[in-house]
């Protein structure tokens, strides 16, 4: 059933329809939260909070945007609130870092290793996580909105109140940082070996 119909039914109290919406989007919501928060436990908390808000405010969803856009905006805001609460005082949006500054903040990351998975995939996952955790928040946020939530540049521009040009360059720089991070580390997964 399409989102529009599910939303309409959920708004009128159909619990099954609401649950179907949850099933459809929970993985992406979780993935977004995980990339923001860097921990499974926090990502689980954020995911629950997102759907609580969806439940609470679904009747106020005016369908000007698609349900998925509305949902991912809630997700990003919940995660940003979560980060704020976790780190104490509010932080103003970080300045765009100096392009030549390659010093990464190396946060503790979750280094689970599942022996049953292919070595390459496991290593890649771990490196990606460390790389994303090391990104400044404004880069992390934009790359998550684009590559997990699937928001368009226009939607990101409106959501973050940035010029489109800034969105384009920031996404590119965030990806470049991740690429460099992956190439810099000792373990270079085959996928990233290059002629650099």
């Amino acid at each position, binding site marked *: 059933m399409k989102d529009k119909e599910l939303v309409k039914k959920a708004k009128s109290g159909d619990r099954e329809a609401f649950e179907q919406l*949850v099933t459809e989007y929970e993985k992406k919501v979780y993935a977004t939260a995980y990339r923001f928060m860097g921990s499974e436990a926090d990502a689980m908390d954020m995911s629950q909070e997102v759907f609580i808000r969806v439940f609470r405010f679904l009747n106020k969803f005016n369908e000007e945007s698609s349900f998925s856009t509305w949902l991912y905006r809630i997700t990003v805001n919940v995660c940003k609130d979560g980060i704020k609460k976790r780190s104490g*005082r509010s932080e103003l949006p970080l300045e765009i870092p100096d392009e030549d500054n390659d010093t990464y903040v190396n946060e503790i990351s979750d280094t689970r290793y599942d022996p049953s998975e292919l070595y390459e995939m496991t290593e890649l996952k771990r490196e*990606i996580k460390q790389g994303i955790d090391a990104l400044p928040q404004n880069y992390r946020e934009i790359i998550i909105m684009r590559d*997990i939530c699937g928001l368009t540049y226009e939607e990101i521009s409106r959501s973050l109140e940035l010029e489109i040009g800034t969105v384009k*360059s920031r996404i590119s720089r965030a990806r470049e940082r991740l690429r460099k991070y992956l190439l810099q580390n000792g373990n270079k997964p085959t996928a990233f070996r290059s002629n650099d």
Partner: protein
Amino acid sequence: MKVCQGNDVLISMYLDGELEGEERDRLVRHMESCEACREYYRQMCMVQRSIGIVDIPPGLHENIMKSVEKERLKGLGRRRRKFFAAAVAAAAGLFLCFSAFTGSLPFMKQTSLGTEQEGSEMAELKLADSGEGVSVSTYDANSSERSAGASSDQTAMTIESQMAWFSENEGDMAVVENYAEDSAGQMENLAEYISDSLNGSADGFGYYLITEGKTDNVPESVASNLTDIKAGSLIFIKTTNSLQAKQDIYCSMSENGFEIYEDSEGEYFAIDETAENGLLIIELE
């Protein structure tokens, strides 16, 4: 080999389907003959795909549905209390009888001034000692300044009339004691109620943030000398309408254990972001 200058952003846009027409065709033709750019594109594809590879923990769906169900039951609980309170008030016939029953109805809000709610008396709007630098003024709920059409039997001060007074006067803070959601008898959800009441009636306010929490947890940075305010009261505090002020208040309240109601997109309810003032509304449990 490095990617050709300027192509890093273009390749990123191409990856996102945001490059169109001649610009896209030009890039595609270029990559056919440039190994460095082609390799860069390949690596960017990997980066993009990898970001989405996240292990989903077992129990995610169940945990989410449990939380939502809890939320649903919370909402039902409020409606039941409201219904019961309205039924009691209707059966008793007079607001005078309400206070006589408060001792035997454990789920109704107890207030120390409950015995003052007799006949058509309304909760008195008064101002706490707000400390240095904050101007205060008083409002007599029984005065003729009440909105036209309010009957002498009306026992609940509406949020609208409070807000209208607050906007018009010079005070920075107002306290309504004995505010009880049930006795207001109007809405099951405080945030929704205030939001609906405020829209269009709170001129001059650029945003409002609604919070709920314990009396003695209100941080001093937000409002000083509020320890005497009784549970069940509503406090309205004028604030500066700026991003920094909003964020500071948000953090102060949430750090002190207050639950914060926000709109559906996690933003602060907003009316007019060019206004000078914002508003913090606190319901004390």
